[in-house]
């Protein structure tokens, strides 16, 4: 039995009487690629927002590797080991590519260096900066952005900006990586490239990944298990093929 990284119990949230999401139970094992699918407005991003502490769930509990993280702040949840990307890309636009990743490395214990040490440029500052740069480069290599590391992130093409967001999330050394529509707006070639990167991240970092995606080919080609949401409730769950072929799911998508 593999280790369970993420477990939600009856997760739900309502906004002023409107139940946006209710009774979501997800269990994700280590090194699993898990998909969260559903039509527009089904509450997928809301689930992400609850998992990362943007919203506080009104009901239910979230456990990360056995630890209850319900209602913790975004920073704390990130320190505990959940990192995410955003549906509408949120990079640090005025920074170069490598700096974006360096911010991600900020809280890693091996790069500890107090503000005082930085202010007066004590030797540890330089050791830490150098080590961080090396680490950042190695992460950029995984997503294939090493060449572009000195370009401002806002000047990157769209597909590469998405990859950079993944790199930045990866840099925080998470136990669980949440990807919000990573393939949105990509052409088939880029999508295939991204699929390779995601599998590579899983294998190289022993990463557990939860992703939202609309591209069914992408989901069925990548995910081991999926949860299908519709109107904030779970429609189907389990093995990718079975869940996606569920007549209810097809109905929800095609509207038959």
């Amino acid at each position, binding site marked *: 039995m593999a280790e369970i990284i993420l477990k939600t119990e009856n997760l739900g949230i309502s906004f002023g009487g409107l139940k946006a999401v209710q009774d979501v139970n997800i269990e994700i094992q280590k090194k699993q690629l898990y998909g969260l699918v559903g039509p527009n407005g089904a509450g997928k991003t809301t689930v992400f927002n609850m998992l990362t502490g943007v919203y506080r769930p009104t009901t239910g509990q979230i456990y990360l590797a056995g630890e209850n993280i319900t209602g913790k702040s975004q920073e704390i949840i990130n320190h505990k080991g959940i990192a995410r990307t955003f549906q*509408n890309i949120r990079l640090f636009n005025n920074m170069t590519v490598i700096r974006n990743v360096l911010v991600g490395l900020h809280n890693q214990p091996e790069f500890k260096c107090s503000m005082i040490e930085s202010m007066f440029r004590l030797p540890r500052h330089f050791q830490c900066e150098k080590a961080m740069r090396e680490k950042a480069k190695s992460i950029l290599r995984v997503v294939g952005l090493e060449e572009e590391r000195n370009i401002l992130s806002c000047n990157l093409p769209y597909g590469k900006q998405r990859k950079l967001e993944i790199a930045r999330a990866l840099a925080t050394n998470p136990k669980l990586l949440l990807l919000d529509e990573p393939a949105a707006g990509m052409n088939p070639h880029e999508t295939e490239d991204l699929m390779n990167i995601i599998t590579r991240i899983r294998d190289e970092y022993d990463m557990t990944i939860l992703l939202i995606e609309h591209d069914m080919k992408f989901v069925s080609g990548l995910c081991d298990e999926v949860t299908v949401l519709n109107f904030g409730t779970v429609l189907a769950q389990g093995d990718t093929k079975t869940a996606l072929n569920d007549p209810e799911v097809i109905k929800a998508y095609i509207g038959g």
Partner: protein
Amino acid sequence: MEIIETLINGLSSGGTYAMIALGYTMVYGIAKMLNFAHGDIIMVGGYMLYVTMITAGNPMLGLIAAVIFCVLLGITVEKIAYKPLRGASPLAVLITAIGVSYLLQSTAQMIFGTAPKMVIIADMGNFEVGALKIPYYTIVTLVCSFVIMIALTMFVKTTKIGRAMVAVSEDRGAAQLMGINVNGIIMITFAIGSALAAFAGFFMLMKAPSLSNTLGAMPGIKAFTAAVIGGIGSIPGAMCGGILLGVVEAISFKIPVIAPYTDAIEFMILILILLVRPTGIMGKVRREKV
């Protein structure tokens, strides 16, 4: 009796603050900018009043001249200084507004010098009922400001232009697509704000007849505070904030121990209210999408 007098005084100066605050709040709500030059429009109106009174000798004529001049000035400033920056960083617009404020102040100083001018509008005496003694100008200010505020609320609520204003404020792009002349609406907003500032200047000079080029600076900042207390963007909020500030000021002036600290107390109220309600009493919050 003294309590009632103080309260009426407070309401009246609060009405003046509210009128200035309305200018801030409307410009903020529609043009999405902090018009730091708004206070100086009051000062310009004051000088216009002064000039007309010297030449024509009639305060009512002076008020009309001041209102017209301020409206024209407001529109001109908007066209020259703010319109080119539409779509630029809010900070850039803020700095330009500060520049305009300096410009108005120094121009006034160049024309009229530094020595304060006396503008005695009319000595109307006091309204007396028993022991109650209230200067007439206080009552005039009080009544006028309330009439103006109610008229403005009705204007925004019921007229086509008013509804267009709300639409532009909600979503400029969508309003434009619906066929609303956004530039025209912003121009009207500045015109209304400036007209209100001219009125406020008139009332201020009625109370204290000394006119200098910094006449509008402190009331401007305080009215801005009032607008923020009420919740910037909210018309009733600006009124409440202005009146609250005016009453607090009047009460504070009456207590000798804290009288010198009146300004500090007013700003303290602002900080406390914002700590309890980060968007002011009637402000609305829009959540950022994640």
